[in-house]
């Protein structure tokens, strides 16, 4: 758990004072991803970098795992927190294996333990340990380098991770792919993660919670659904965009909508269906796109084994009015 208590950062240059972070209060629960979202200069990166004391706090305090970060030795604190940055920051003079083992080595792990950890992490990242072990960072693609950056931060198994736009410099296809892999890994790891982003879609996709900042102030914090359905003020409303209702559809999938349709299975199923098909796991935004271009606004839903299980109509979306993801999970 990470707790921010009246955290303030004031930069002084000459007699001018600039408040970069203004009296921030909130907490991030164990195992949650909290995305810090906002335009550049909103203080999100400053706040992140205060957690591992790369930037000193002017007033207030931060607690990590119940301990005030200022009561801890600075070097020990940093070694207990995973840190990933946008331009990966891999050490060009070290091999991939050496890069990943930096923190374990500083913590004095023995060789065999480091070796095993390296192989496990490479497995987790979907990279071949033997192939990459002796190679240098410049020999890897941008996506591979970023994966190594994440693996390196995970090496000593820290309970908390700080990630500063880790996918920001990647092309959209690779970024999407890495985001999915990252979520899969996180489902098993259950780390407490602070994640800086300026991309609302990334925040919705990855965040258990989203904290939106503007000019050093916390505008709103909540689940992606809360942010999208009930923006607290004009700034948040503008920032999430006019299509926030559409974006909310990405939070639910076809399976969720089916729960709301009475007698879906018996409904309208015709076995020699030749029209468009939608997977039961598709998110509702993509499903809507299919339905809008389908003849009669209808498409057949298929399950994980490609079995046809029913027909979805574009008008079914009206059932979603005033429905939130948390309500669905209760029904299910």
């Amino acid at each position, binding site marked *: 758990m990470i707790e921010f208590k009246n955290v303030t950062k004031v930069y002084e240059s000459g007699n001018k004072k600039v408040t970069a972070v203004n009296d921030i209060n909130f907490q991030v629960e164990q195992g949650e991803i909290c995305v810090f979202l906002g335009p550049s200069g909103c203080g999100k990166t400053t706040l992140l970098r205060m957690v591992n004391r*790369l930037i000193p706090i002017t007033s207030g305090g931060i607690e990590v795992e119940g301990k005030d970060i200022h009561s801890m030795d600075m*070097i020990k604190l940093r070694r207990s927190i995973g*840190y990933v940055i*946008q*331009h*990966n920051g891999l*050490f060009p003079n070290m091999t991939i294996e050496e890069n990943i083992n930096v*923190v374990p080595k500083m913590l004095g792990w023995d060789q065999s333990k480091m070796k095993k950890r390296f192989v496990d992490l490479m497995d987790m990242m979907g990279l071949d340990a033997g192939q990459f072990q002796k190679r240098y960072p*410049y020999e890897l693609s941008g996506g591979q380098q970023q994966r190594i950056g994440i693996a390196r*931060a995970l090496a000593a198994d820290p309970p908390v991770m700080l990630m500063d736009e880790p996918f920001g410099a990647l092309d959209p296809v690779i970024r999407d792919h890495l985001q999915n892999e990252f979520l899969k890994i996180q489902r098993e790891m259950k780390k407490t993660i602070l994640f800086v982003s300026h991309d609302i879609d990334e925040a919705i996709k990855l965040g258990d919670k989203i904290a939106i900042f503007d000019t050093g102030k916390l505008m709103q914090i909540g689940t992606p659904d809360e942010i999208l359905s009930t923006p607290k003020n004009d700034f948040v409303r503008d920032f999430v965009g006019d299509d926030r209702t559409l974006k909310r559809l990405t939070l639910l999938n076809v399976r969720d909508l089916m729960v709301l349709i009475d007698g879906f299975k018996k409904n309208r199923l015709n076995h020699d269906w030749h029209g468009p098909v939608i997977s039961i796991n598709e998110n509702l935004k993509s499903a809507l796109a299919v339905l809008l271009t389908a003849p009669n606004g209808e498409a057949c839903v298929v399950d994980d084994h490609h079995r046809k299980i029913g027909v979805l109509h574009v008008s079914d979306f009206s059932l979603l009015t005033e429905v939130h993801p948390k309500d669905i999970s209760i029904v299910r």
Partner: protein
Amino acid sequence: MLEIIDFVSNNWSEMLGMTLEHIQLVGLAVGIAIFTGVPFGIYISQRESLAELVLAVAGIIMTIPSIALFGIMIPIFSLINQGIGFLPAIVALILYSQLPIIRNTYIAIKNVDPNVRDAAIGMGMTTFQRLVKVELPLAAPVIMAGVRMAIVLTIGIGAIAAYIGAGGLGGYIARGISTSYAVMIQTGAIAVSILAISVDLLLGRLQKKLSRKSARA
């Protein structure tokens, strides 16, 4: 030309001795200069406020004409009865080597990718670990370029040190001038040039090897 070859074949064992003396003089001076200049360069890269002053002083020392610096050394070292000879020459050469070594060390460490430095600090490296494991290996090729510059520079200046009795290949030039023996002057000059060029080529190779090892991201 033939006279020079003649001179060399008649005096080769003496020349070899002088060349070794020259190498010894330069090697010792630059060796000490590395031990003082590199740490100094590292130190000022961490203390920005000092950097300008130190680089300015090193720059001023380098602009003092070598013959004048040797002249200054004589009265100072006379105080400990070492007015002429090896010691004042070494000290002068160390002073000349400081600027390229300090400046290149400073620039090389300053130029380490700020993302790499940020990652090193954020992961919990101490300042010492960051220097030894990350910054110095990455700075090595540029520091090496400074050392190379210092060596070539002191091979040239070292020739003049013969005037204060430090020995080396400059001896032929000094003796040749005072006895109006042109072949001796030419032989000394060519020998110093060949030494400087071949050492430069050798160190160039070494520098390339270093850069390859720390290939950039």
